[in-house]
């Protein structure tokens, strides 16, 4: 199966563009089960499009108002959810306190292998 790992960061973590990817995380991103990844700018750079009963509303900022913002997307292969959770858990261990990862199964996708 394929899974997407969505990484969330606390709102106060806004200087990430100035920081390099931590070494341990970079090493993990090079692993064969990671089939793709993207690191995103903080939510100040986000623009949200909303479909308001057929009309498109454009707003500045992330889609959901919460303390965390979507910080990245990591695509992995795993036999099942337990495998995906194990990888997510390990990844989370390389991140700063306050980070969260949402593990979501991928319904379909064209992903380039490692």
């Amino acid at each position, binding site marked *: 199966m394929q899974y997407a790992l969505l990484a969330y960061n606390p709102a106060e973590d806004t200087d990430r563009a100035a920081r390099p990817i931590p070494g341990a995380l970079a090493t993990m991103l090079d692993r064969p089960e990671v089939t793709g990844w993207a690191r995103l700018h903080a939510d100040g750079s986000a623009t949200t499009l909303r479909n308001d009963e057929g009309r498109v509303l454009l707003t500045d900022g992330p889609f959901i108002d919460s303390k965390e913002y979507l910080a990245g997307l990591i695509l992995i292969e795993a*036999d*099942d*959810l*337990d495998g995906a*959770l194990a990888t997510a858990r390990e990844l989370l261990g390389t991140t700063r306190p306050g980070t969260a990862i949402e593990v979501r199964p991928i319904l379909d996708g064209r992903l380039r292998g490692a």
Partner: protein
Amino acid sequence: MGASVALDAVFRDQWGRVLATLVGILGDIELAEDAAAEAFAVAAERWPGDGEPANPTGWLVTTARNRAIDDLRRRQVLAGKTKLLIRDTETGPQPPEALMDDAATIPDERLELVFTCCHPALALDAQVALTLRTLGGLSTDEIALAFLVPFETMSKRLTRAKHKIRDAGIPFAVPPDHQLPDRLAAVLAVVYLIFNQGWGGGRVDLTAEAIHLARALADLMPDEPEVLALLALMLLHDARKGARLRDGRIVPLDDQDRSLWDIRQIDEGRSLLRRAMARGRSGPYLVQGAIADLHLQEPRDWRQIAALYQTLARQTRSPIAEMNRAIAVAEIDGPEAGLAVLDRLDLGHYRYFHSTRAELLRRAGRDAEAHDAYGRALDLAQTEPEQRFLAERLAETAPSVRSEPGRAGG
């Protein structure tokens, strides 16, 4: 009528076993459930006339599997080519051909199923509902009734859980050794939660259901001390069932008629506890089983009970263990000492916290406070026997009623 009752019993026994095997074959709980339901319906139609087959499990699995495959092929024709369905029907795991003839060839996959249903990626209330539905064979109606939620809510909860298992790829497997302790603890927590939900005396006999589940687990994992200990714990509690209610009211342990206790069940519980202790590993259910055993002895050794609750509180960091220690402390050093322990706990949401506190306040002669606490306990009480008991105590401690300080002689 007698035949249909006998058939019901066979169905209850077979449901979990048949469903687990079907999930293993079909790879989807919802599909397996539909197929099993169809097979059981066919059996209900044919068995009374034809007689029960020599191998009912094999008969039910084979019938259900054939129905499921027919159904999948039909849907495949309707929906056009679908890779998933091709895999399921043509290259998916196939059962042995001789299912109908030889019970030994049917793998018992109930353990795989219980670990799937109690997977930590599912919400606890979903784990509980799903376990009762799949392993216990309870209907959605019964589960909704037992947990006091509308049918629609329970139905959605079950459907969502089954879809999550399918879509997220929750494995149908017994976890590897390094995960087993945590995962087993989650399974046992679900079984014990089912037991506790039944303990208040609700309308669905969940205590029997929990014991039934634990018996199956003890058969499947005879070397796991915590499984044996949980079964022992529940048997020891349940042995007092006959004495626990009088005229639809809860009877406190001290006031119970001991001749109504189930001695055979107590013996079984104690022998299971000895088996669990012989494994040389302690766990929270073993400690609780030992406490339950002490509660059945006369006179009760409150110091040992308090010490074991302290061990339990340390093992589980559970404020409920502390609450129970407070009861033992009150017996040793008086109600005020017990209340001092209770006052440190943050258990305002827990119904038995208020009834426990009320009881100690009443014994301490603080009737006005006891009255308030009984009121709060009554607000949170979920079953009629508990409500009746609490309503009486509430009336007894009402300001207009003069009552003696100290313990009311039960």
